[in-house]
């Protein structure tokens, strides 16, 4: 059998153009090695390719622009992610403020308590000191004029004459 007898006929070449995998094993094997049959196949493919290209290039072009529908106003449901994000942000901010507030007031309260405690301690220390070192009973007589006669005695000591005259 010579190679001429094995050449693909027109139908087989067309089938190979549609899908080479659909050829029988024998025909496919011949096509893969025969330049004559490959040439026939390529010629048909070239014609179809040129036809397609011409049809594309020679078709009129659209002149009118495509108008798309206007955007519909968004439904409340479609805003849901925005609402959720906003609510989350508000919660976060509120949380931060609350934490800051609580922390600050706690600190203030603690320092207030510390100051009060310190004052109390000071006061207690003073009281304790007063109790510990209380003045003797004589002490108020020196400062208060409980005995006016003491001054007369002093004058008589400084100037006995005048004191006597006054006494007369």
């Amino acid at each position, binding site marked *: 059998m010579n190679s001429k007898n094995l050449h693909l006929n*027109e*139908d087989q070449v*067309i*089938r190979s*153009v*549609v*899908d080479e995998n*659909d050829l029988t094993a024998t025909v496919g094997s011949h096509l893969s090695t025969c330049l004559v049959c490959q040439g026939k196949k390529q010629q*048909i493919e070239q*014609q*179809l*390719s*040129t*036809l*397609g290209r*011409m*049809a*594309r*290039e*020679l*078709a*009129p*072009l*659209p*002149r*009118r622009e*495509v*108008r*798309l*529908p206007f*955007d519909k106003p968004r439904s409340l449901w479609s805003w849901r992610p925005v609402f959720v994000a906003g609510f989350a942000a508000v919660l976060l901010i509120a949380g931060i403020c609350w934490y800051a507030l609580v922390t600050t007031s706690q600190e203030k309260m603690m320092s207030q308590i510390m100051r009060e405690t310190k004052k109390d301690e000071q006061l207690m220390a003073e009281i304790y000191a007063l109790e510990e070192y209380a003045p003797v009973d004589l002490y108020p007589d020196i400062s208060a004029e409980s005995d006016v006669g003491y001054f007369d005695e002093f004058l008589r000591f400084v100037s006995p004459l005048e004191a006597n005259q006054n006494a007369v």
Partner: protein
Amino acid sequence: MADTYHDVTDLVEKARAGNRASLEQLVDHFHKDVFRMVYYRTYSPMDAEDLTQEIFMKMSKSLSSLKDAGSIRPWLFRIALNRVRDFHRKKSILSFFGTTTELEAAAQATAENHNNPANTMMLKEFQSQFRKLTDSLSQREREVFMLRFVDHLGIREIAGILKKGESTVKTHLYRAIKKFRQNPGLHRLLKGELL
């Protein structure tokens, strides 16, 4: 402008999430393809404009139902094909095949679009021959042939668009190519005698 598969997929994802700019870019990306697809099924630039508008409206409304962003092109072509079918169902048989005036207007529009009025006759010749070819095909053969070689879709994508098995698509394609091979007028055009 979206150039790669990933760019387009990215645009689809963003447009589905409500990004208006991405939706507009998506329309820009497919505008010519969809218009041309509709044009070769109506042969009327005016009707193609109206249908293209409707197809993109449908696309923008249904984009959320598209499961795989990567399959936007075949999905969009399926919408387009369904819309064209509805159009033909409603139109009279005369409008379906187009009138001579419509074909001339189409050739004129093409020549103006390509800034080459001198080639109007040549374009008219191509469109006439191309029309003869597509008219010689059955509805299924024509659809498969156009989707494969003009709209550049793969066998699997075409099967998805038409909701047919891949073997059925291949059978229609085989028959369409056979008829194409028997069209001498087109071969003359393809050899570059007119272009």
